[in-house]
C-alpha cells in the first residue's frame, strides 16, 4: 500500500475481503424465515395449551386478539399508553443527564470517586420496589412517583458505566488535547464523551428496559392512570385476556423502539467503528 494516493478519488483499498452482496440477502431471508417459524410454533403451543385451561388462567390467542382490538379502540388506551411512556421517558432522560454528568465528574476526580463510591453501592442494592414505596410516601399519587422509581433504577446503571468508561479514555488523546491547550471542558466533550458513548449506549438501552419494567410496578402502587393501573385492574377482575393484550402492546412497543429508533441511531453514531469490529 502506498502512502501517496495515485488519484484523489481512488477508493480506499484496505486489503480486506469484500462481502458478496447476494450472500448477505440470502442470510437475511433465511433469518426471517426462521423467525416466522418460531412465531408460528409459539402460537401453536399457546393455542393447544389454552384448550386445556379455563380462559382466566390462559386465554386462547384468538381471545387475546379480540381483547386487544377492543382495547385499542377504547377511549383511554392511547391516553394510558401515553402517560406511562411519558413517565418512563422523563425518568430515563433525567437518569441519562445526571448519570452522565455525575459519572464524568467522578471519573475525572479520583478523590470524589473514592468518596462517593459507597453511596452508589447503597443506591444499587436498594430494590426498585422499595424505591416505589418511598416514592409513594414522598410524592403520593402523582407522575413523580413513577418517574422517581424509573430514575432511581436507571441512573446508577448509567452512572456506573460512564464512570467505568472514563477509565478507558486513552491518556495519549488527553495529552494531545493538552498540547493544543484545550480547556478541561473541551477535553471532556471532545475526548471523554466520544470514548464513553458506545458504553453509554449499551447501558442506556439496558437502563431504559429496566426503567420501563419497574415503571409498571410503580404505577400499580402509586398512580391513578397508566398501563400499570390498567394491568392491576384487569388482574383484580380476572380479565386475563386484558392482561395479555397489554403485555403484547408493551412488547410490540419495545420492539418498535429498538428497530425504529435505537438500531438506526446506533448505526449512525458508531459508523466509524463498524468495519473495525467486523474484521
Amino acid at each position, binding site marked *: *500500500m*502506498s*502512502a*501517496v*494516493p495515485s*488519484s*484523489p*478519488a*481512488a477508493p*480506499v483499498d*484496505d486489503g480486506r475481503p469484500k462481502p458478496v452482496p447476494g450472500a448477505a440477502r440470502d442470510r437475511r431471508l433465511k433469518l426471517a424465515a426462521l423467525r416466522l417459524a418460531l412465531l408460528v410454533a409459539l402460537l401453536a403451543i399457546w393455542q393447544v395449551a389454552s384448550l386445556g385451561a379455563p380462559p382466566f388462567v390462559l386465554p386462547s390467542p384468538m381471545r387475546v386478539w379480540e381483547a386487544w382490538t377492543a382495547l385499542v379502540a377504547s377511549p383511554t388506551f392511547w391516553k394510558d399508553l401515553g402517560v406511562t411512556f411519558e413517565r418512563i421517558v422523563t425518568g430515563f432522560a433525567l437518569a441519562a443527564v445526571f448519570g452522565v454528568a455525575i459519572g464524568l465528574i467522578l471519573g475525572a476526580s479520583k478523590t470524589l470517586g473514592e468518596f462517593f463510591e459507597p453511596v452508589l453501592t447503597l443506591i444499587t442494592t436498594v430494590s426498585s420496589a422499595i424505591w416505589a414505596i418511598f416514592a409513594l410516601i414522598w410524592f403520593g399519587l402523582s407522575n413523580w412517583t413513577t418517574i422517581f422509581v424509573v430514575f432511581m433504577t436507571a441512573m446508577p446503571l448509567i452512572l456506573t458505566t460512564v464512570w467505568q468508561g472514563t477509565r478507558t479514555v486513552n491518556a*495519549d*488523546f488527553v*495529552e*494531545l*488535547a*493538552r*498540547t*493544543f*491547550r*484545550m*480547556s478541561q471542558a*473541551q477535553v471532556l466533550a*471532545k*475526548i471523554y464523551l*466520544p470514548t464513553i*458513548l458506545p458504553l453509554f449506549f449499551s447501558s442506556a438501552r439496558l437502563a431504559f428496559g429496566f426503567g420501563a419494567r419497574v415503571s409498571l410496578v410503580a404505577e400499580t402502587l402509586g398512580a391513578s392512570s397508566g398501563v400499570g393501573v390498567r394491568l392491576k385492574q384487569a388482574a383484580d377482575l380476572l380479565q386475563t385476556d386484558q392482561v395479555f393484550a397489554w403485555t403484547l402492546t408493551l412488547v410490540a412497543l419495545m420492539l418498535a423502539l429498538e428497530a425504529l429508533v435505537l438500531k438506526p441511531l446506533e448505526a449512525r453514531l458508531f*459508523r*466509524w*467503528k463498524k*468495519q*473495525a469490529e467486523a474484521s
Partner: protein
Amino acid sequence: MSVVKVQSVSKWFPRRDGESLHVLQNIDLDVPEKAIVAIVGASGCGKSTLLNIIAGLVKPDRGCVFLNGVKASDFEDWRSLTYMFQEDRLLPWRTAAQNVAFGLEAAGVARPERRERVAETLALVGLSGFADAYPHELSGGMRSRVALARSLVTRPSILLMDEPFSKLDPSIRTQMHDEVLRIKELMGMTIVFVTHDVEEAVVLADKVVVLNPRPGRVRETQEIRLPYPRDPLSPDVAEQARLLRRSL
C-alpha cells in the same frame, strides 16, 4: 534570534523506591529561526522529556526555556507551537478532516474558516480525496499525513516532532521526510525533531544534537552542511551518520 532556547535545564523524576531518577542534566539547546534541529540519542536519554519541557507539558526542575525570546512561563502564544507524536493519535471516531480540524477547535476558529483551512491543509499533505475517510480506512503513511496536517493546520511557527515516522516502512518514511522538507520550505517554521535514527537526523537537520543517557546530557552538537535534498543512500550522508554514531 533563537526561536527555542533551552538554558541549563535539569530534570529529575521521582521513582517508586523514593529515590529520584536524573533524566536531564544541564541541557543547553539553541534553535535558530527556520532551522531544523534534530535531537538524537538512545532510548532512555530523555529526548522525549526534553521535547515535553519545550512544549510546556513538563516543568523543568532547574533552568528555563525561552520561546521566541519569551520565558516559557510567560509565553502565551501556545497556538504557534504544535506537537507531533510517535503514534499518530488520530481520534478513531473522527474522519480525516475532523481530525485535522481538532487543532483549530481549541483555538476557537469559526466553522466556515475552519472548513477552508482544513481543506487547504489536507491538500498540502496530498490527502484531498480522503477528507471523509475514518482512520481505520487509511494506511499507515496516510494516517501519518493526517497527523502532520493536524499539526500544521494552526500554522505554527514551531513544530516539535517526537519520532513521528519511526513506525513507518522505510520507503514511506523517506516520502514523509521529503514532505516535511517541502512544507517547511513553504511555511517556514522552525522544527525540533527527536529521533533515535542517525540517518533520519542527517537527512533532515541543519544541526544535530547528540544526547547521552543516564542522565541525559549533550554529548555533541554537529552542523550538517550538506545541500538539500539529501539522498539517504549517498556517501556524504553515510559519512556524517558514521561520525555521529561514534558519539552515541
